[in-house]
């Protein structure tokens, strides 16, 4: 017993096998996996549809050969193998939007085949080769898909931007689901999913190029800005460095000037101190002189006051002496008069004579002293003594 492989290429979707053509000494068996199915067409009638099983004695073998020869088996036995699992089919299209943009791309159809629909493939195999591949399916479907789905959907788009929207994809799928049902049902397929993949249109390419150029220009601009910023930064750094160096130089120069000025200031302060010392010395000398002058003045004033006092005392003594002499003379004269009166010599002539002599005596005593007793005053207000030749206060001569 040998294993028969109905699918030796992944592009094969279905195959119609005439079991009578399989002539082999050993019986053939085929293993049907869960995504494979086999419909038996015996003498033109559709028989069982098998899956997930090992189909033994499907063809070949001595016993079947003998049966054929004896005419006890079916005259025509055909096996229709098919893949039932979902498979993707890519259909190329070339259309145009309502706005005139040319659109190229692929429509993806995801199809599966129900087990009970496998005999419908006979519709296809009736007019085509007994092997169905993806390419043949695409050829069968492409015209109808273009006419019923792609062209109407593209015509509903004004521009290429609408092709990228979710609405377009949803409408595409729904249109495919609705419009492709007839042909898919005839072939036994069930549509699971449909979606378009469109290549960039001319306008989009142009837009893309424009964006790329804008991006390039923006990049160049950014680079230029960066370079300018770098240059500006460098310029700022250079200026800052120059300013800093200038400031350092200034600071250094200022430091030197300051040092020199401080040195000069120090000299000046020394000079000032010297001058202050001299000034203080001179001031001290002057003060001493003034004190000396003041002391002299005070001494002179004191001496003057002392002289005045002594003068006053002397005048007082003179006046007292004069008074005592006058008193003694008066007393003597009185005694003389009394003696004259006692003796009887007191005549008017005597009295008169007496008065004359007394007057002359008084005149002689007081006359010389008359001018000396009159106090005199200087223009500065200083009291002057009679014997002074000049004012001791202002130095004015006394006439």
């Amino acid at each position: 017993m040998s294993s028969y492989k109905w699918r030796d290429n992944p592009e094969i979707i279905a195959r119609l096998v005439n079991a009578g053509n399989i002539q082999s000494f050993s019986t053939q068996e085929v293993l049907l996996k869960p995504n494979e199915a086999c419909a038996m067409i015996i003498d033109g009638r559709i028989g069982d549809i098998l899956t997930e099983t090992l189909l033994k004695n499907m063809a070949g073998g001595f016993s079947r050969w003998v049966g054929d020869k004896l005419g006890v088996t079916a005259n025509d036995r055909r096996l229709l193998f098919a893949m039932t699992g979902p498979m993707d089919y890519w259909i190329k299209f070339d259309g145009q939007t309502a706005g005139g943009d040319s659109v190229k791309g692929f429509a993806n159809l995801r199809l599966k085949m129900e087990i009970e629909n496998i005999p419908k493939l006979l519709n296809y195999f009736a007019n085509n080769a007994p092997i169905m591949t993806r390419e043949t399916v695409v050829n069968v479907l492409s015209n109808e898909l273009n006419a019923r789905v792609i062209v109407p959907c593209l015509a509903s788009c004004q521009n290429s931007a609408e092709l990228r929207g979710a609405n377009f994809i949803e409408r595409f799928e729904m249109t495919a689901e609705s419009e492709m049902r007839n042909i898919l049902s005839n072939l036994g397929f069930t549509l699971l999913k449909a979606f378009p993949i469109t290549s960039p249109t001319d306008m989009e390419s142009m837009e893309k190029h424009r964006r790329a150029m804008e991006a390039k220009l923006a990049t160049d601009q950014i680079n230029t800005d960066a370079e300018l910023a770098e240059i500006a930064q460098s310029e700022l750094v250079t200026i800052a460095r120059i300013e800093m160096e200038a400031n350092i130089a200034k600071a250094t120069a200022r430091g030197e000037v300051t040092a020199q000025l401080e040195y000069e200031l120090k000299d000046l302060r020394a000079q000032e101190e010297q001058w202050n010392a001299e000034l203080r010395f001179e001031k001290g000398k002057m003060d001493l002189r003034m004190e000396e002058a003041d002391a002299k003045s005070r001494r002179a004033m004191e001496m003057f006051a002392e002289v005045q006092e002594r003068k006053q005392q002397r005048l007082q003594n003179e006046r007292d002496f004069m008074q005592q002499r006058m008193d003694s003379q008066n007393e003597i004269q009185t005694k003389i008069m009394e003696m004259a009166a006692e003796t009887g010599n007191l005549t008017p002539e005597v009295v008169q004579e007496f008065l004359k002599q007394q007057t002359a005596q008084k005149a002689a005593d007081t006359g010389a002293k008359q001018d000396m007793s009159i106090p005199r005053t200087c223009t500065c207000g200083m009291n002057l003594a009679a014997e002074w030749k000049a004012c001791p206060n202002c130095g004015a001569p006394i006439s």
Partner: protein
Amino acid sequence: MVGTPVDIMPYVRGVQLILTGYNGYTKGSRIETDKLVREEIVRAINRVRNHMKNIFDIKFKENNMDIARVAKQCMEECDYFTEDVKKAVGGMEHAFLSGQSSPSNRELKKLIQHDHDSITMIIEAVNLSNSAEFSMNTEEDKTKMIISQTTQKITSCRGFFNARANVLAGLKQKRKKK
């Protein structure tokens, strides 16, 4: 009917009302029974899908995209469910040589009950889809709601059916005696 205890007979009878030939995984026909259940589920899903397809076609041509969209979504959910069922694990093959244990009555009961519940649930979805198509001509404002309920039922059924793998997983290995 070996291996089908009396208490699960109601479930077997219930499935048999729908599936002629269902015998509750008796020995010698367990693979066929499993395929039978799965094919019935796929058939029911296709019924749902066909109803939704009709709704979609009509509503899409009427440019009623709201309902067409939900109907398409339901169709897609049906496709997913179909693939799940077709590619689901079968289990229970070559029990003698592959190390797989023979299912106990308890496990068979669980499996049969699960089949019954799955088929019941998908039939409810079929009824809902039928109501949805019917409501298009009577109560159009309810159509969208019923389609959504159908989708929800299909999704629930899908999840429930996937739990079948857990039921079958208990049959894969022989229990080691401690």
